[in-house]
């Protein structure tokens, strides 16, 4: 059981590492938020659940923490992305399409 938990935690740590690497490598804010959200969600989830498996009496508590992370992580990334878009931070040169103007026209 201990080893199984360690393997799961280890996979989580690998994803967290890849997330931080992605934040360094990506060209603009939006792509960084993408990588940050995805890798940290699964990374946190696996790390916390792995701890719960190693210590079976904590399992339900860690599950609740993991679910809270799963729900609140997208919300925070949405807030970051929306604030960036509102302040008009531009996309990187590689971008092909930007429909923000069309979106604004539709809503006004």
């Amino acid at each position, binding site marked *: 059981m201990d080893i199984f938990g360690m393997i799961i935690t280890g996979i989580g740590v690998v*994803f967290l590492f*890849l*997330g931080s*690497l*992605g934040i360094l*490598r*990506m*060209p*603009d804010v*939006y*792509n960084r*938020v*993408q*990588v940050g*959200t*995805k*890798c940290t*969600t*699964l990374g946190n989830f696996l790390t916390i659940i792995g701890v719960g498996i190693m210590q079976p*009496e904590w399992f*339900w*508590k860690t*599950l*609740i923490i993991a679910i*809270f992370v*799963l*729900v*609140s*992580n*997208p*919300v925070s*990334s*949405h*807030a970051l*992305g*929306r604030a960036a*878009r509102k302040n008009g931070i531009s*996309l*990187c040169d*590689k*971008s*092909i*399409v*930007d*429909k*923000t103007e*069309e*979106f604004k026209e*539709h*809503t*006004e």
Partner: protein
Amino acid sequence: MKIHYLSIYLCETDNNCLLFAQGFSKINLMNKQKQHEKYSVRNFFYLFIILMIIWMALALSLNKQELYTGIIVSFVLSLALYRSFQIIGFPKVTIRKVAALCIYIIVLFKEIVIANLDVAYRVIHPKMPIKPGIVIIKTELKQDLAKMILANSITLTPGTFTLNIEEDRLLIHWINVKTDDIDEATQIIGKKFEKYLKIIFN
């Protein structure tokens, strides 16, 4: 039409709502306040059951003292807080909806794992194969809670994340743009979740 997010309002009402503080519009709030009374009993029981489950998971024992304390605390809390849950508007529970919810959760987890492998591949690859862009998709969902769940699911799935929601349109940042047509993008990004959410919130 300008839409105000109610996160501040909800935080002021009570801290419990922080999780749900995304995507509620002012107009919908006023509409919901009119039909307040209709849902109050149902909301009270939902809140009671949710609090009770969290209590049981944290307490981890079934002796009488723990149970009684949990029941009293959950009862008082849900009595105090059920009013602020009326904005959210939970649907009625049927077997079909519970089944749809289970399938939805399985699909969501599958997508989360695919998303992570996808992002990991893009990060590790030396040339970084990204084609970012911002597209619009449409949704047929009406309820605020359903739209919020859809937006959060889109954020957690491969290569997409939600920037903004206005009425029936979502502004999406896509790391690998395949099409800039609204209908095609809706098919690719939104449909896999929308069909289950429609059953849950019909």
